[in-house]
């Protein structure tokens, strides 16, 4: 067990999977770049060579088909996109093709391919470099969808994703790359499916996705100071969805807040609410709540972006309202001096 950043944990995951299996291939625009794809691929080209850690043309749809084809023929490729937005060019290959190939050929083919995408945020990424569209993939049978929120899962889920016989969408959040945490050394898998209980509590279930787990944990801390014990669930896997894990927690707490840095309408936060309320054995003490993005594209101006993203404040507010406590005045106001558009204080741009 050592202390690694989330970015280093991803790299560790790549390294373990590549050592284990000669057929694992990393590919993507700028994968062998000197900055190492936010540090997630540094050193891998040196260790595994240019044939296994390779750049590609700027052709997202075609290259998605190429890695799908390679995966049908003995290779285990990981296709990397610097931004999820770029992968939108490849929806046909990911969703109409990769997701369906096992089913429509009656189980005769396997497509062990990983589509890795980085979710952008902040520093003026704006409307076309920070679209959080993980819910789209969660909608599609045939795919599995993971969004780790801690370094340990970042590595374990990457190894599992690469070793899984199915097409996997692996989404890492730009604001998690610098986050440090304990990571087991060597090869291990994190099972694709079960959610992670990030914090035990009995009064309210906060279900969060990706980076929002951090905000949820901060909210829980503040709620604890007010005598409310929140249980924080890290929904690290959207598909398959751990419905049982969700229900188990909500049956205990009787309260539900779904937190997703994404749009609400027909998104994963809606699914979380739906799957809980349609369960006849679960009884909620209050109407469930969603904490999500406002229903508009990402503005670029830091002034607007600061208001755009939901924070621990919003989670605290939602929970307090359930308990009939009104929020403190100014609770949602932005704190002067805090730069809400930076992934970490050391960041100075440009990307």
């Amino acid at each position, binding site marked *: 067990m050592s202390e690694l950043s989330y970015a280093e944990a991803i790299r560790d995951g790549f390294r373990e999977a590549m050592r284990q299996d000669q*057929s694992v*291939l990393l590919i993507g625009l700028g994968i062998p770049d000197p900055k190492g794809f936010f540090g997630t691929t540094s050193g891998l080209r040196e260790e595994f060579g240019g*044939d296994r850690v390779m750049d*590609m*043309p700027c*052709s997202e*749809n*075609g*290259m*998605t*088909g*190429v*890695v*799908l*084809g*390679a*995966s*049908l*023929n*003995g*290779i285990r490729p990981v296709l990397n996109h610097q931004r999820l937005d770029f992968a939108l060019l490849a929806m*046909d*290959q990911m969703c*109409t*093709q990769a997701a369906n*190939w*096992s*089913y*429509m*050929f*009656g*189980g*005769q*083919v*396997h*497509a*062990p391919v990983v589509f890795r995408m980085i979710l952008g945020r902040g520093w003026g990424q704006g409307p076309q470099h920070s679209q959080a569209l993980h819910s789209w993939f969660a909608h599609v*049978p*045939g795919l*599995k969808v993971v969004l780790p929120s801690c370094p340990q899962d970042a590595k374990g889920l990457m190894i599992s994703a690469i*070793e*899984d*016989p*199915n097409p996997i969408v692996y989404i890492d959040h730009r604001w998690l790359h610098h986050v440090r945490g304990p990571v087991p050394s060597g090869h291990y898998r994190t099972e694709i499916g079960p959610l992670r209980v990030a914090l035990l509590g009995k009064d309210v279930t906060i279900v969060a996705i990706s980076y929002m787990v951090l905000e949820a944990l901060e909210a829980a801390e503040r709620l604890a100071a007010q005598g409310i014990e929140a249980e924080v669930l890290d929904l690290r896997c959207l598909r398959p969805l751990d419905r049982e894990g969700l229900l188990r927690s909500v049956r205990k707490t009787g309260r539900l807040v779904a937190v997703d840095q994404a749009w609400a309408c027909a998104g994963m936060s809606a699914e979380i609410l739906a799957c809980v309320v349609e369960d006849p054995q679960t009884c909620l003490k209050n109407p469930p709540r969603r904490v999500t993005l406002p229903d508009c594209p990402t503005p670029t101006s830091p002034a607007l972006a600061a208001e755009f993203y939901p924070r621990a404040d919003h989670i605290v507010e939602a929970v307090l309202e359930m308990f009939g406590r009104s929020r403190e005045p100014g609770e949602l106001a932005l704190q002067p001096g805090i730069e809400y558009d930076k992934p970490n204080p050391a960041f100075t741009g440009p990307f």
Partner: protein
Amino acid sequence: MLRIRLVEEAIADAYPRQEMRCPVHLSIGQEAVAAGTAAALARADLAMSGHRSHAHYLAKGGDLRAMIAELMGRQDGCCRGRGGSMHLIDRSVGFMGAVPIVGSTIPIAVGLAFAEKLRGQTRVTAAFLGEAATEEGVFHESANFASLHRLPVLFVCENNLYSVYSPMAVRQPAHREVFEVASAHGIPACQVDGNDPEAVFNQVVAARRHVRSGQGPFFLELKTYRWREHCGPGFDNHIGYRKEAEFLDWKKRDPLENYSRKLISAGLLTEEGVHELSEKISAEIAEAMAFGRKSPFPRGLADFVYSIQP
């Protein structure tokens, strides 16, 4: 060719009985492309195709019974009933799949070839496509990548002048040929009479030699013509999107008729030989139809969504 023709005609005949409940795109008139190409490929070579894939599947050696059963939506179909006519596969003969989204198997086929190269294998992959597929951006992305890495892939483009009811004139500029676009990606390319099986065969032999020698992809444009309606068993010249005269012109260039006449006059085949062969094939088809009809309908709606084998 004869086998493909007879199978397609048998499908057309059977179709109105509504036991093949899926869209079918027949290759009648275009048989020489499939036959000539596949004859020049090795059994171990790989192939992928699109919506109009019966001929390619059969020529590559795909199981006829499994294909008919698939069209009938049966458990013994080549996709176990999950795919239908537009999704054929027979891995045992290297026919690695077909899908009906125009252009979408092109990069996947290039990916097969990429894997071959990465693993130091020497099999050639044939990517069958219609001329409309070259209008999809993904064709160009695939061609660029194949050219860049000199991948062992053979693009086999059947130019039958139409995409559904749309003629070339509303889709591609008049002042350039399809194969020239491929060659601009640095891929050797040429045009062949797609109704002449020998010409196709000879050109594919040469192209395959080029590809196998590690020099990278090759692109073949094969001019041909679809006789029947775009999708379905009938004829549709009467609805007006193309001229009867054009059809009749192309009918004169019937690959099957002309080639058998050629073989007969060369003394390599006899009328009786053709007749005998037809009988044999017809029996085989009848048997395949019976096989399909006897095969049970599949069960297990949600099987195969995910692979479990690691």
